């Protein structure tokens, strides 16, 4: 049963974000709209401490630590936002709640955004953030990569890249509705079936997002670091996907998990009923708390 809070959020999302995404909107307009919407998200709870510590060459990053004390676990979180925007407050709150539940420290990376910094700038920042954790003595098996939407895509690309360069891989990954297929080619499946049911996302601006993120080099769309669903998942750590059955991105998670399992990688998918894209960040809904608790359970299972 979907809660009334989520139903309200879905209706509001359908009337605002979805409509905005359907129309031609400049990146600046989109960022301004998000900034206005962000005011409605609460700040990080008092029991989580935030420390802005850049330490990265091209972007900011923050440490989030539960005040009660954290274990060795570290969650490296890559925010979403179609590679061009981000809900800073919402993602910070999401990571704070995940860290509190998993008793972990969180590293929030504000990787560079397109179109000013097209691919692979964002991915390079994520790689740098991961290397920095290793340099600071965090054991790779204690690192969990997490990402929402575009951040989920980067999380998968990060692990594929680490594996390709024979670097130590993290202990696992939690992926919230990753946008893992940049080709947008399937003319069937969730991108068609859920085109009307998705409360937030719409494919109308897909070509424009692709052009801006890839800096015009659209031939890169089939590269595994851009569309991880086309990659080889061999050797990757355990993966945990969360997605809703009404999202256009549903098949991205399903197909990634299938490919991972075919490559001998442990991959689980939670398919939630009628949730809007990114519901984990809607802290006022009960389903968000439950979803985050399940992510934290997974992290605790894989990193005791």
């Amino acid at each position: 049963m979907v809660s009334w809070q989520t139903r309200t959020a879905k209706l509001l999302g359908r009337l605002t974000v979805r409509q905005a995404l359907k129309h031609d909107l400049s990146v600046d307009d989109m960022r301004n709209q998000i900034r206005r919407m962000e005011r409605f998200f609460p700040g990080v709870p008092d029991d989580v401490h935030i420390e802005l510590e850049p330490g990265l060459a091209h972007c900011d990053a923050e440490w989030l630590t539960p005040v009660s004390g954290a274990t060795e676990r570290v969650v490296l979180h890559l925010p979403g936002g179609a590679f061009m925007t981000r809900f800073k407050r919402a993602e910070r709150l999401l990571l704070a709640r995940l860290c509190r539940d998993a008793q972990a420290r969180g590293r929030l990376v504000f990787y560079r955004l397109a179109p000013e910094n097209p691919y692979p700038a964002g991915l390079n920042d994520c790689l740098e953030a991961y290397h920095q954790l290793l340099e600071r003595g965090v054991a790779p098996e204690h690192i969990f990569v997490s990402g929402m939407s575009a951040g989920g895509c980067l999380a998968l690309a990060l692990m594929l890249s680490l594996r390709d360069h024979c670097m130590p891989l993290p202990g696992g990954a939690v992926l919230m509705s990753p946008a893992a297929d940049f080709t947008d080619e399937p003319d069937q499946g969730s991108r068609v079936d859920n085109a009307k049911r998705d409360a937030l996302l719409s494919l109308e601006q897909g070509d424009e997002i692709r052009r801006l993120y890839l800096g015009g080099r659209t031939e890169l769309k089939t590269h595994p670091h851009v569309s991880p669903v086309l990659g080889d998942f061999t050797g990757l750590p355990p993966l945990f996907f969360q997605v809703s059955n009404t999202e256009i991105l549903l098949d991205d998670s399903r197909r990634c998990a299938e490919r991972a399992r075919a490559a001998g990688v442990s991959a689980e998918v939670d398919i939630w009923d009628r949730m809007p894209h990114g519901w984990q960040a809607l802290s006022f809904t009960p389903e968000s708390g439950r979803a985050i608790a399940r992510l934290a359970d997974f992290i605790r299972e894989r990193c005791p």
Partner: protein
Amino acid sequence: MTSSEPVGTANPGAAFMRRLRNDHAGLSRVLRTIDGLLDRLAGEPEAVQPILAEAFGYLLRYQHGYHHPREDRLFEKIRRKRPALADTLAKLEEEHETGERETAELAEALAAEPPDALRGKKGERLAARIHGYIQHARMHMRDEEAVFYARAEKVLGKSDWAEIIDGDGTEDPAADMAVLADQYPELAAHFDLPTRHPGRSETADPAVNAPHQLMLDVTDLYGGLLHEGFDLTRRNARRLLAVRGPIGLVRTVGAITSDNLRFAGRCVTRPSRWAINTGADWLIARVKPVQDG
């Protein structure tokens, strides 16, 4: 997931703490499995009840039978070394007792009735109770990890560990799938499911979903118009504020009027076009002969 390293070797403290951590990993896995089944309890009790019954059996037999006594012995030692933590440790110990009572009650409630009796409201009430239990168990684990996981190895010495470590060597059945499948077959079958459906309690019947689909269309239709209306209002206001002189005013009013008329036209044509298309689809679906094969 876990190692079955014998406790009491070179670094007994580290090995003992690892075992406790592994117990928490097993507990997290079982809690996540239970959580993933709760929404179906009231709708499909015959499928869900046996798995939940086994899960609560596991919680009672292993987590309350072995894991908590281990932790209690550890708490006792830490309390002697760090009296300042006495209140927190007492709270955690009390939670062990109340948790065990609650687990036993829930296990009994699950076993007391035939599965069919849990269909409907009764199942929903029990699911809500189990959900509360899971939340509480997660918070308890979190508190333990925060309070003593980081401290125990620093605070306790070799002789303390020797007194704490038990000789039974009982391992968490959840750490070994073969053992789990042997002792808790229903639970084991649900441990490694590739896909779960949290929150799904109703069957997706296209006939039931048709009005919902219609509602989504209407929301999209009027949402789109509303969005355009807001945009237009903002644009009009900006134009009016930018007016300089009477000629500018005339031009602006002209531009605003033409934009508004165009928008009014869309407000009339778009819903009627949608209504005609939807009506036609509905009619075709009914008139079209059913094709065999």
